[in-house]
C-alpha cells in the first residue's frame, strides 16, 4: 500500500555521519543488506542463468491506467535494465533463471520493487506506479540510489530519518541537529538551544513543522523552537539558500520536519521509548501508537505523547542553579488516502516550563563585568528538580489540514492550512522589589494562520514544474505586562514558480518567487505619548538556479545560485529596553528595510562503495544585514549603565566550507570525519561579524561486535569533537573574550535485540571536560554541562514494522 510521504526512491538515503551515531552499524542497514544478498544470489545463479534465459515483459501505467514512458526497469543484482517505450511497454529478454528483484523507477512516482522467479516460461509483469508525495525529492529523477543521492538537490541537504533521530532522542532539536556538519547550537543555559546554520539563526531560518512554517516568538536567542524531540518525523536540513517554496525568511536555511507515513491497513504498531540522562537527572518517556482502521481502507491514525523532566544541569565543578525543565507534548495525526486524494490532519501541543540559571539574573553592566571577572557563580547552588523564577513557560499549539488531490495523470494539487497559537510567558527572578513575581514580566500571544496552495504538473522523465502561492496572517498580543515587543498584526502573500530539467548527466533546477508583507505595529513611543500605530510594507523577489552535473558513476558536482530576502522582524524595528541576561540595552530602528542575501554554493558529492563524501563551499553576500551595532554612549538609568546596541543594517559576507567524509574499509569498521568553517565579515566595518561559530571538526570510529552470547547486533563507537577558539571577532564589543577551544570525547554502545528492542548507552563528554562554548549566551556566567551518561531503551508495540528502527 502507498503510504504518506513515501520516499520517491526507497534506496539508501545518504545519511552522513548521523548514520554512525545510531543503533546498528551502517553496513547492517536493511537496504545495504539487500544489495549484498542480491549480489550474492546473482553470483551463484549467474552460470545457470546464462544457459536458461527467460524473457520478462509488461506494461507500466499510472494510477489512471495511462501508459508511462521512460520508466527505468532495473535488475540491480545483475546490473542490467531497460526503459519503457512510448506505449509504456518494456521487455527484458535475457533474464537468467532464478529469483530476481525488478525495480521500476520514474521521476515523480514511487519506486516499485517486484520479486519474480524465472523458471522457463515468459513472464508478464504489469506494474502500476503511484505518484509520490515527498516534495523535496520529487524534483529529481533517479536510476538508482546512488544517482538519487548524487543529484537530489543543488543545495546542501541532509536528511535525518527516524532511525537516526532515535539514536539522539531526548535532546532538543538544536542539539540533535548540531551533529550535522554546518549546524551548531546557540544555547542559553542547558534548557534552551536553537539551531544555527552556517552562522545564521532565529528569523533567518524557516522551521517547517508538518508542512507549516513554525511561528513562535523566535526573535531572540533565548527562544528555542517549540518542537517535541520525540515527534515521529524525519528531518531535512537545507543549508543555505533553499528552494523558492519556503518563502522569505529562508535566507539561512530550512529545517523541515515531516511526519512519518501513517498505516493504511489495520496493523497496530508503535513503540515505548525511555531515556535517562545522568547530568541533569533527566527522565524522558515517549509512547507512540498507530493503526489503520480496518473497516475503512486507507484510513490511519497515530497518537503520540512524550514527557521530559530534568533537574539542574552540572558542570564538572558546580551545579547550574535552576536549570531544570519540564516538558509535556503530544500529537494526533489522522490520514486518509484513496485513489485520487490524500488527506491528513495533524494536531500537536508542545508545552514546557524551563528554569533559567538564576546567577545570570544581573542588574546592570557593572554586575556583568564583576561576574565575568569572578569566573564562576557567586554561590553554590544545590541540585533540584524545582523550577523557580527566572523561568519561561511556553505553549505551542499547531493544527494543520492537508489535502493532496491528484488531478489527472500525476499532476497534483496540494492545499495546506495551518493554525498555530504560541504563548510565551517569561518570569523575571522577581518583580524589581517584591519577592516573587506573581505575574509574568512578558506574556506574549502569537496567533498565526497559513494557507498554501501548490499545483504540480505531471512530471515526465526530463521535466517537472510546479506553481504555488501562500498566505499568512499573524497577530501578536501582549497581555498585562512588558512591551519589549509591541503588539502587531502582519499579513504576507507570495507566489512562486519552479521547474527542473534533466538530461543525463545534467540537472537544472530553477525557481522564482515574489512576496509582499504588511505589518501594523503598536510601539510605545514614550510612556507619555502611549502607543502609536505604525505600518510597514515590503516587497521582495527570490530566485534560485541550481545545476547538478554527474561526474562518472560515483561523483557529482552541484552549483546553487540564489537570491533570497526577508523583511525585518518586529524586534528589529521596535525593541526598546534592557535584554535580561546580557544587560544590554537594545534599540530598534523603525526605518530598516529588508535583508537580501546573494549566495553561491558549490557541493561535491561522492558515493563510492567504501567511501562517501559531501563537501560544500558557500559564499553568502548579504546587503542590509541587520545586526545589533554598539552605540558610543552607554544608556544611563537609575539602575546603572547599560551598553547600548541599535539594530542597524550593514553589508555582510559569510563564507565557509562544511562537509563530511566516511570510510568503511571493512563491513564491521567505519571512520567518519565532518567539519565546518564559517567566516563572517562586516564589510562596512571591515572586520569580523560577532557570534560566528568557531571552526569545528568531529572524527568518529565505530565497529560491530560479534558476540555469540548476545542475541542481536551490537556495536561500539568513539567520537571526538574539536572546537577551535573563535579568533575572529570584533574587538572591544563583547563583554568577554571568546572562550578557549575545547575537545570532547563521546562513547557509545548500541544493542539491537532480535525482538526489536533497542538499547544504547552513550557517554557525552567522557572525560568531564570543563569548557565554555562561544555560542553559549551564558558563557559569561557558567561552564557548559559536564559528563552525561545516557541510557536509551526502545520497545516496540505490536507489529515491529512501525518501529522507527525497522
Amino acid at each position: 500500500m502507498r503510504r504518506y510521504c513515501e520516499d520517491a526512491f526507497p534506496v539508501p538515503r545518504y545519511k552522513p555521519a548521523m548514520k554512525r551515531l545510531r543503533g546498528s552499524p551502517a553496513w547492517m542497514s536493511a537496504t545495504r543488506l539487500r544489495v549484498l544478498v542480491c549480489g550474492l544470489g546473482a553470483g551463484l545463479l549467474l552460470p545457470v542463468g546464462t544457459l536458461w534465459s527467460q524473457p520478462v515483459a509488461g506494461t507500466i501505467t499510472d494510477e489512471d491506467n495511462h501508459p508511462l514512458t521512460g520508466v527505468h526497469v532495473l535488475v540491480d543484482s545483475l546490473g542490467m535494465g531497460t526503459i519503457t517505450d512510448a506505449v509504456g511497454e518494456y521487455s527484458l529478454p535475457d533474464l537468467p533463471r532464478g529469483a530476481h528483484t525488478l525495480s521500476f523507477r520514474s521521476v515523480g512516482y514511487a519506486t516499485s520493487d517486484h520479486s519474480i522467479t524465472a523458471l522457463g516460461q515468459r513472464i508478464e509483469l504489469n506494474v502500476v506506479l503511484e505518484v509520490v508525495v515527498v516534495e523535496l525529492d520529487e524534483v529529481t529523477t533517479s536510476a538508482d540510489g546512488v544517482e538519487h543521492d548524487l543529484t537530489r538537490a543543488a543545495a546542501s541537504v541532509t536528511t535525518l530519518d527516524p532511525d537516526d533521530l532515535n539514536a539522539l532522542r531526548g535532546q532538543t532539536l538544536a542539539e540533535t541537529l548540531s551533529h550535522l556538519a554546518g549546524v551548531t547550537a546557540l544555547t542559553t543555559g542547558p534548557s534552551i538551544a536553537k539551531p544555527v546554520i552556517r552562522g545564521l539563526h532565529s528569523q533567518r531560518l524557516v522551521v517547517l513543522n508538518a508542512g507549516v512554517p513554525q511561528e513562535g516568538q523566535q526573535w531572540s536567542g533565548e527562544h528555542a523552537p517549540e518542537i517535541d524531540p520525540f515527534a515521529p518525523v524525519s528531518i531535512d536540513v537545507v543549508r543555505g539558500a533553499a528552494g523558492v517554496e519556503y518563502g522569505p525568511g529562508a535566507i539561512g536555511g530550512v529545517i523541515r520536519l515531516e511526519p512519518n507515513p501513517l498505516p493504511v491497513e489495520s496493523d497496530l504498531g508503535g513503540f515505548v521509548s525511555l531515556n535517562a540522562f545522568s547530568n541533569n537527572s533527566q527522565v524522558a518517556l515517549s509512547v507512540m501508537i498507530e493503526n489503520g482502521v480496518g473497516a475503512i481502507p486507507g484510513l490511519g491514525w497515530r497518537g503520540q505523547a512524550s514527557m521530559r523532566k530534568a533537574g539542574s544541569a552540572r558542570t564538572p565543578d558546580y551545579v547550574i542553579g535552576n536549570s531544570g525543565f519540564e516538558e509535556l507534548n503530544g500529537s494526533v495525526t489522522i490520514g486518509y488516502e484513496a485513489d485520487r486524494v490524500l488527506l491528513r490532519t495533524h494536531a500537536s501541543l508542545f508545552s514546557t516550563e524551563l528554569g533559567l540559571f538564576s546567577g545570570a539574573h544581573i542588574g546592570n553592566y557593572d554586575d556583568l563585568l564583576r561576574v565575568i571577572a569572578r569566573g564562576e557563580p557567586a554561590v553554590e547552588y544545590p541540585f533540584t528538580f524545582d523550577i523557580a523564577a527566572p523561568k519561561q513557560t511556553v505553549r505551542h499549539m499547531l493544527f494543520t489540514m492537508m489535502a493532496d488531490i491528484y488531478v489527472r495523470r500525476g499532476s497534483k494539487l496540494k492545499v495546506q492550512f495551518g493554525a498555530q497559537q504560541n504563548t510565551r510567558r517569561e518570569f523575571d527572578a522577581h518583580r524589581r522589589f517584591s519577592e516573587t513575581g506573581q505575574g509574568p514580566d512578558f506574556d506574549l500571544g502569537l496567533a498565526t494562520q497559513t494557507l498554501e496552495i501548490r499545483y504540480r504538473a505531471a512530471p515526465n522523465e526530463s521535466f517537472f514544474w510546479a506553481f504555488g502561492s501562500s498566505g499568512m496572517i499573524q497577530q501578536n498580543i501582549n497581555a498585562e505586562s512588558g512591551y519589549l515587543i509591541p503588539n502587531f498584526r502582519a499579513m504576507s502573500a507570495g507566489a512562486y514558480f519552479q521547474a527542473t530539467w534533466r538530461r543525463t548527466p545534467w540537472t537544472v533546477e530553477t525557481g522564482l518567487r515574489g512576496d509582499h508583507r504588511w505589518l501594523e505595529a503598536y510601539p510605545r513611543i514614550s510612556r507619555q505619548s502611549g502607543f502609536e500605530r505604525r505600518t510597514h510594507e515590503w516587497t521582495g523577489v527570490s530566485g534560485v538556479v541550481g545545476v547538478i552535473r554527474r561526474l562518472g558513476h560515483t561523483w557529482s558536482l552541484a552549483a546553487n545560485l540564489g537570491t533570497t530576502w526577508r523583511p525585518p522582524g518586529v524586534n528589529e524595528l521596535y525593541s526598546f529596553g534592557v535584554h535580561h541576561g546580557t544587560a544590554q540595552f537594545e534599540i530598534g530602528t523603525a526605518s530598516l528595510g529588508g535583508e537580501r542575501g546573494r549566495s553561491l554554493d558549490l557541493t561535491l558529492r561522492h558515493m563510492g562503495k567504501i567511501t562517501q563524501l559531501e563537501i560544500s563551499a558557500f559564499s553568502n553576500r548579504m546587503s542590509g544585514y541587520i545586526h545589533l551595532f554598539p552605540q558610543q554612549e552607554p544608556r544611563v538609568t537609575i539602575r546603572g549603565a547599560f551598553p547600548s546596541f541599535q539594530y542597524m543594517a550593514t553589508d555582510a559576507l559569510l563564507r565557509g566550507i562544511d562537509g563530511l567524509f566516511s570510510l568503511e574499509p571493512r563491513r564491521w569498521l567505519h571512520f567518519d570525519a565532518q567539519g565546518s568553517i564559517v567566516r563572517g565579515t562586516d564589510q562596512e566595518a571591515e572586520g569580523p561579524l560577532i557570534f560566528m561559530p568557531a571552526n569545528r571538526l568531529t572524527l568518529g570510529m565505530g565497529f560491530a561486535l560479534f558476540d555469540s552470547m548476545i542475541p542481536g547486533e551490537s556495536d561500539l563507537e568513539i567520537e571526538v569533537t574539536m572546537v577551535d577558539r573563535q579568533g575572529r571577532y570584533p574587538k572591544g564589543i563583547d563583554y568577554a573574550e571568546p572562550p578557549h577551544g575545547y575537545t570532547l570525547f563521546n562513547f557509545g554502545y548500541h544493542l539491537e535485540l532480535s525482538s526489536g528492542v533497542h538499547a544504547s548507552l552513550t557517554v557525552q563528554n567522557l572525560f568531564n571536560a570543563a569548557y565554555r562554548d562561544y555560542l553559549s549566551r551564558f558563557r559569561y556566567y557558567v561552564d557548559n554541562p559536564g559528563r552525561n551518561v545516557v541510557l536509551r531503551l526502545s520497545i516496540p508495540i505490536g507489529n515491529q514494522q512501525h518501529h522507527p528502527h525497522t
Partner: protein
Amino acid sequence: MFFARYVPSILFLFVAMIACDSAEPDDDHIGDEELITRISITLVSSNGISQTANAKDPDGDGVDFEIDTITLSSGMTYTGSVELADEINNEDVTEEIRGEGDHHQFFYVVGGDATSQVTIQITDEDEDGLPLGLSVTVTVADGGASTGTLRMLLSHYDDVVKTGSNRSDETDVDVTFPLVIN
C-alpha cells in the same frame, strides 16, 4: 469532494481572522513594569539646613535621565535619608525596600578628590541587624573646597546571601551624583 467541501471553509476562517481581529493595545493595562523613576537623598546639616538631590528617569529607560549635584560644606556633618519612587505607577518604593531589608543594602562610594574628605556611615539596620542604608550620616572633614562623586548602589540579594559587606550580582540602583565641597 474534499476540495469543494473544505477549502471554502478554510478560506472563510482565514478571511474572518483578517476582518475581525485588532491588535490595538489597550493603554490601560499594558506595559506597567515596576521601575524606579526617582531616587532622592535629603541631607540635613547639623545647623539645620536641608537640601534634596534627585536622580530622575521619568520613563525608566534613561532617555530623559537627569541628576542633581550635591553640594556639601567642608567640616559639616549631615543626616541623610533616601527615598525611592516609581512615579509611573505612583508608588513609594522606599517602604517596599525597608520591608525587605534583608534582601537589600545600599552602598555609598565617594570618588574623585573628595574621596578622603567625605565619610558615609549607614545608620539603619534590617531585621537581622545588618546595615540597610536608607539612613546615613555624612561627615565632611575639614580641608577646603574640592569636587568628586557620590555613587549610590542598591544591591538586591536573591541567591547571594547578604552579609552586610558583600555586593550581590544584581544591582537595583546605581547612580553617581556629582559632588561639590565648598
